[in-house]
C-alpha cells in the first residue's frame, strides 16, 4: 500500500505523476528547487516542499535532500520521474533503508541492470539478439582495437555508465580509435564517474525502436508494444510514434513477445524500456535498457489505453499485474512531438525566460502534457522540454493530419521553440513515408525542414 508519494522531479513529469496519484486516491507532495517555486506542479499540488537551491546537485540530485523531504512530509514512497535520481541504485537503496517505497525497480535490480555492457551480455543469454560488439567492457585501447577489427568499422564507442544519448562516439577507422580512445575514457570518467567503455558495430540507416515492458513482483512480464524514436538530433529524441514503420507484422509480434519473456527471465522488475536498433535487414538488435518511466510513455498510453504511471505505482506497491498480455490491446497510431525551448534556427540553442503567451492545442485525440502557463519563467538550469504533444489516429496518416492541425494551434511566446521545426517535419517526404532513420536530420538539415513549414501568422 502506498498512501503518500513525494514527487521528486519537475516540469511536465511532476504534473503527470501528480495526476496519476490523484486518480489513484494517493496523496502527493511535490518536491521542488528554489528555481521551481512558481512551477505549475507546485501551484497545482495540495502540498509542496522546497528541497534546495536551483543547482540540481543540491536539490533534485541530492539523495539526502529528497529522502529527508519525504520523511519531513510524512510520505511513504518516492516517485523519481525520469532523469535525476530515477535510475540511481544507491538512492533506491537509501530510500528503502528509510522505509520508503522507491517507485521503480529495487536497488538490487537497478544494480544488476546498471552496466550497459553487462546488460547486453545478460539479455543476449536470455535470447535477445544484440549488435555485434565487444564482449563487455574493453580493458584498454589494444583490447578495443582488437574487438573493432573483429567486428569491422565503423564502430561506436560507448560509456558503460552513459545514457540519454550522452557518452558515445562513432569511430570510423583504426586511426580514429587510437586518437579518441583515451579522450572517450576521460569524457566518460568526467561525465559519469566511470571511464569504462564498450563498443558496438555502428549501424547506419537504422530505426530506433523500443519496447515498453512491465514486470510484477512475481516476474509476470508484459509488453505494451513498441515505439519508434528514429527522429533524433545528436542522439536526442524529438519525435516518437507507435507502432513503428520499420517492423513487419510478423517480425513485430515475435519480437515483442521475445523481449517481454527475456526481461522477465533476466530478473527485471517494475516498468522499463528495452531499446533496439532495426537495421536495413528489418531485424531488431538490443542496445540498452532504461529502468524508469520515459518521456515518450504517452505514445504507448494512447495506443493501449493503459495508464503507465498508475501501473508503475501499483507494481511498486507490490500489486500483481492487473491484466494479461491478451488484454493489452493496441489500436491505431500515436505520435509525440517534444516541444522544447530551443531555437532550431540557431543550432537548437537552449532558451530561457518568461512565457509571454501560451495557448495549448485541443481537439479529438489530442493530448498536451505541459507545465507551462503565461507568465511562467522558464529557468535556465534544467532541460529544455516545454511540452509534449501526443496525437492519436486510426491510421498513421490520420495521426499525422491531426498532428499538423494541433501544432498550428500551439502558441508559445517569449522563447523560441521547436514548433515550426515539427510543422516542417510533417511536410518532409522521408518522415511522411515512414522511412526516416536516425541519420535523417543530418542528411536533410534543419534549414530545409524549417523552410518546409507552412507560414503561420506570427
Amino acid at each position, binding site marked *: 500500500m502506498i498512501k503518500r508519494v513525494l514527487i521528486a522531479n519537475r516540469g511536465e513529469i511532476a504534473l503527470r505523476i501528480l495526476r496519476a496519484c490523484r486518480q489513484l486516491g494517493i496523496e502527493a507532495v511535490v518536491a521542488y528547487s*528554489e528555481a521551481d*517555486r*512558481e512551477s505549475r506542479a*507546485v501551484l497545482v*499540488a*495540495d*502540498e*509542496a*516542499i*522546497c*528541497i*534546495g*537551491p536551483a543547482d540540481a546537485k543540491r*536539490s533534485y540530485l541530492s539523495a*539526502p*535532500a529528497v*529522502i*529527508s*523531504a519525504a*520523511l*519531513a*512530509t510524512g510520505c511513504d514512497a518516492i516517485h523519481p520521474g525520469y532523469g535525476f535520481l530515477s535510475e540511481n541504485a544507491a538512492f533506491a537503496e*537509501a530510500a528503502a533503508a*528509510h522505509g520508503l517505497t522507491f517507485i521503480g525497480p529495487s536497488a538490487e535490480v537497478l544494480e544488476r541492470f546498471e552496466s550497459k555492457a553487462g546488460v547486453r551480455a545478460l539479455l543476449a543469454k536470455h535470447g535477445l539478439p544484440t549488435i555485434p560488439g565487444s564482449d563487455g567492457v574493453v580493458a584498454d585501447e589494444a583490447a578495443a582495437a582488437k574487438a573493432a577489427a573483429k567486428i569491422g568499422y565503423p564502430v561506436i564507442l560507448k560509456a558503460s555508465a552513459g545514457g540519454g544519448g550522452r557518452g558515445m562516439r562513432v569511430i570510423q577507422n583504426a586511426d580514429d580509435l587510437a586518437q579518441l580512445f583515451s579522450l572517450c575514457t576521460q569524457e566518460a570518467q568526467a561525465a559519469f564517474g566511470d571511464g569504462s567503455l564498450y563498443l558496438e558495430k555502428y549501424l547506419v540507416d537504422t530505426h530506433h525502436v523500443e519496447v515498453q515492458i512491465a514486470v510484477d513482483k512475481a516476474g509476470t512480464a508484459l509488453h505494451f508494444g513498441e515505439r519508434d524514436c528514429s527522429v533524433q538530433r545528436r542522439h536526442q529524441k524529438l519525435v516518437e510514434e507507435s507502432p513503428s514503420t520499420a517492423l513487419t507484422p510478423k517480425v513485430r509480434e515475435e519480437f515483442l513477445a521475445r523481449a517481454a519473456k527475456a526481461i522477465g527471465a533476466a530478473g527485471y522488475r517494475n516498468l522499463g524500456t528495452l531499446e533496439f536498433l532495426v537495421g536495413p535487414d528489418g531485424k531488431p538488435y538490443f542496445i540498452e535498457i532504461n529502468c524508469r518511466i520515459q518521456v515518450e510513455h504517452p505514445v504507448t498510453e494512447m495506443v493501449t489505453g493503459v495508464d503507465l504511471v498508475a501501473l508503475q505505482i501499483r507494481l511498486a506497491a507490490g500489486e500483481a499485474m492487473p491484466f494479461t498480455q491478451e488484454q493489452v490491446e493496441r489500436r491505431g497510431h500515436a505520435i509525440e512531438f517534444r516541444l522544447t525551448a530551443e531555437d532550431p534556427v540557431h543550432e537548437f540553442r537552449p532558451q530561457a525566460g518568461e512565457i509571454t503567451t501560451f495557448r495549448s492545442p485541443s481537439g479529438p485525440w489530442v493530448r498536451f502534457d505541459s507545465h507551462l502557463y503565461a507568465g511562467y519563467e522558464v529557468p535556465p538550469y534544467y532541460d529544455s522540454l516545454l511540452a509534449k504533444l501526443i496525437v492519436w489516429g486510426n491510421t498513421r496518416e490520420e495521426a499525422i493530419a491531426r498532428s499538423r492541425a494541433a501544432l498550428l494551434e500551439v502558441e508559445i511566446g517569449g522563447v523560441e521553440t521547436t514548433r515550426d521545426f515539427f510543422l516542417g517535419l510533417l511536410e518532409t517526404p522521408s518522415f511522411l513515408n515512414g522511412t526516416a532513420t536516425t541519420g535523417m536530420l543530418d542528411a536533410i538539415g534543419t534549414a530545409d525542414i524549417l523552410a518546409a513549414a507552412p507560414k503561420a501568422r506570427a
Partner: protein
Amino acid sequence: MPHNTERLGELLDSLVPVLVERLHETGLGEIEIERDGAIVRVRAEDLGAPGASAPAPAAPRGATPSAAAVAAPTAADDRRHPVRSTAVGFVKLAPDIHVGGKVAKGSLVATVDVLGVAVEVRADHGGIVAKLRCASGDPVEYGQELFLLESVGEAKL
C-alpha cells in the same frame, strides 16, 4: 565603526527609554537622534504591534509556499532579518533562540536534521529574536523562515 562598546551600551540604556516615551507622547512613527557619532533610531512598529509587518511563514505543508518570497517590503524590513533553514528536515533551535533572546552575528542558531546529519544554521546578522516561526522538532523546508531577528544596536550584543 570604532565605538567604545561599553560607552555605546550606556548610551543606549540611557537613551532608549527616553526615546520610547517620547515616541508614545508624540505619536510619531520614528525618532532618530545622533550622539557622539552614533545614530539611534526607534520606530513604533518595531516595538509595538507584534508581527505587524511580518511576511507569512513559508509552510512546508502549506498550499502557498511562495507567500514569503512575494511579501511586500515594509519600512521595518531593513531592520528585520529572517533566519532561514539551510536544509530540508527537522529543525532544532539553539537554547537561546526565544523571543527576546540575543543572537550574535555568525553564531549557531539552529541545526536541521537531514537523515541524522545536523546541518548548521548560522545567523547572518546579529540582533534580538523578534518572532519565532517554528519550534524544535518541526519539519522545515529549504529556505523556510525559522525566526525573525531585529537588529538593535549591534555593538551591545
